[in-house]
């Protein structure tokens, strides 16, 4: 494209990977939390069916969000490879 | 397992308010003061007398309905609590865990009977009230919801007494502070599942009715008298 693309310094690249990792940590901890609440509702004889319904909706949404981000990150890294097209 | 319930005979009730006072001292309710009560609309009672006016003008008649948490078998408040701070206990009492309550007041908004109260400030017990605190009942901090417990501490104590005497809990062993203090003996407390109990017999009287039974929450406080 324009001028010369600025090369990404190493530490920034590491930071980018770490941020994508953080998103997964966030999403996985939300999933673990929801599963914990599900287990709690079983143990306390609460209403597991309601909790189950919420968790099968909520967890995939979070995972999808994180997957899209990861897909973009990986895709951008791969797409930026040396094989520059005309 | 007992299923605690109560009957209140409205034809006997004189509206003296003794039950309210007894409830306050028994359960260590905070004294919120006149300003809070009247100017801020923050009356603080587990049990209060609701005036019910029928007729108008010179024909008007007022009767008082002692109103506390009606201990629903299907409590709308317990359904919505986000942290399991209010729940239906095994003996049918809607319990409140003060140390877990986050003070969101969702249960108050969901209760069709407005039976719950909130500690808007740090509870105060001025003067001698501080010395007269009932050691059996925990003191609530600010910012939590509280409600009538059917004098749960009395049930625990009566059960211990009966156990140490080596007998089962009998009808009349437990009574709540409001029932005990009532000079007209309008309030009866007991086990609704005990076939011998007075409260069971009274709750099946043709005069018995429940507040807003149409909502399907199945309260365990029965009123005796003419319905509305």
């Amino acid at each position, binding site marked *: *494209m324009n001028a010369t693309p*600025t090369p990404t310094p190493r530490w920034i690249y590491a930071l980018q990977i770490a941020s994508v990792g953080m998103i997964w940590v*966030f999403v996985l901890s939300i999933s673990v939390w929801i599963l914990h609440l599900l287990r709690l509702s079983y143990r306390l004889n609460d209403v597991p069916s309601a909790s189950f319904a919420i968790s099968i909706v909520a967890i995939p949404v979070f995972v999808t*969000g994180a997957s899209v981000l990861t897909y973009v990150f990986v895709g951008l890294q791969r797409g*930026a490879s040396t094989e520059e097209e005309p | 397992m007992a299923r605690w319930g109560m009957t209140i005979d409205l034809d006997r009730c004189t509206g003296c308010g003794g039950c309210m006072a007894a409830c306050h001292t028994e359960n260590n309710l905070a004294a919120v003061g006149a300003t809070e009560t009247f100017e801020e609309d*923050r009356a603080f009672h587990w049990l209060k007398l609701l005036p019910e006016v029928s007729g108008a003008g010179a024909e008007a008649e007022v009767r008082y309905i002692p109103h506390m948490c009606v201990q629903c078998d299907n409590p709308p408040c317990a359904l919505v609590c986000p942290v399991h701070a209010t729940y239906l206990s095994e003996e049918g009492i809607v319990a409140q865990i003060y140390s*877990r309550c986050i003070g969101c007041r969702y249960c108050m908004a969901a209760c069709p009977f407005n039976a719950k109260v909130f500690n808007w400030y740090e509870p105060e017990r001025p003067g001698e009230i501080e010395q007269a605190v009932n050691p059996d009942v925990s003191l609530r901090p600010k910012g939590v919801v509280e409600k009538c417990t059917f004098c749960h501490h009395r049930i625990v104590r009566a059960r211990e007494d009966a156990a140490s005497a080596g007998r089962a809990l009998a009808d009349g062993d437990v009574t709540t502070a409001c029932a005990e203090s009532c000079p007209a003996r309008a309030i009866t407390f007991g086990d609704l599942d005990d076939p011998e109990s007075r409260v069971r017999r009274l709750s099946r009287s043709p005069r018995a009715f429940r507040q807003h039974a149409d909502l399907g929450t199945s309260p365990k406080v029965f009123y005796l008298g003419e319905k509305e």
Partner: protein
Amino acid sequence: MSAGYDDQDLELLRPIEEAGSGFRVMTTLMLMIILGGWVIFSRQILEGLGVTGLNQPVGWGFYIVNFVFFIGISHAGTLISAILRLSKAEWRRPITRMAEVITVVVLAIGGFHPVLDMGRPERMLNIFTAGRLQSPLLWDVSSISAYFMASTVYLYIPMIPDIALLRDRGVRPRWLYNFLSWGWQGTQRQKAVLDRAVGILMILVIPIAVSVHTVISYIFAMTLQPSWHSTIFGPYFVVGAIFSGIAALMLVMIALRKIFHLERYLKEIHFAHLSKLLLVMSLLWFYFTFSEYLTAFFGHEPSEMRVFLYKFTGPYAPFFWGMVACNFVIPVIFLSFRRLRTIPGIVIASTAIVIGMWLERLNIVVPSLANPRLPFPTGFYVPSLVEWAMFVGAMATFILGFVLFARFFPLISVWEIREGRHEGVSETVERLESYLPDPPENLAVRSAHGEGEAT
């Protein structure tokens, strides 16, 4: 695509490259207002919720009203921009970014409000350790956090090419743009990845956005309280949310157009399209309100009627009729006639709608609580200084969010405008041609050769 970029869109980057003192003044001012709000709020932390105007029957007030209101506004963004992108509305290009920023900023503000409302905010963690997914409040926690995540991602991903542009132009702070641009170089493969990701997100975001306000309405609808316990509350809240969201979006667009001189980008035509959408939402809002209150009135249930009369003729009549005027009468007058549908007219209509939708939330939360079923005295609610301070603070936070965003990122998507210039026009022509009926020769050939073998 060809290298080199049109210089005519670079004025969009000027607020970032030449950030003046205006930015610093605004940030300081807003931070001071927010700080002032927190200072006043500290009384509530020290003394308890008693410092608010909340009372025994009316246990929920400003905090919950503002919670519902702000989350409603947040539907401006992501939902509008997702729908416009999905329907390939070409006029969306200068609008989507602003709409998405509104969503993220307002969602953070709104989502925080229930914490202000708690009697014991330090026990927040109980929701994580001992939460009950059965409670509608937990549905809110999960759907709002899902929406926040999805809308942040949806704001961020289409922003990557613009961030890379800033990086390549050496704008400071360099490390920030370098970090956020994720190695974007604008290659064909990268563009394909971005397009696909935006394509997935815009579809993902719509059901989440709808679910968020549905679930907020469930907080009320799941209880048995008169005029809350209603099956249409979900759609009613969603419609109201989109309605207030578009109005807020228009106000933001008009304000930013004035401040950053974006008249070349945000043209009359954009406002004309959006105001027609707003008019439709106003009518839809009226339809929902009408059917909601008609059912209550026709059934004539005593506890329902007590709330009904409280709103129609009782203490809340000014707020109720004010709401009807703001949400229906004023917008319909100003948006129906072309002569009134000017920028000032749109400002009046949108301001009215934002106020009216706030009043609607007030009319939903307070009257039901103020009218208990049993013969309790009817309640009334007057917010205290603390609640007003937090309301003003929330507004200041909203402005601060926009100021900060405008300082570091372009408010109008540069690459999407450019894409519109280069590819959008030819693409639209192509698309339009594909909608037109096939030419008759084709038909003749097809019927002659049987199926499939089109020339």
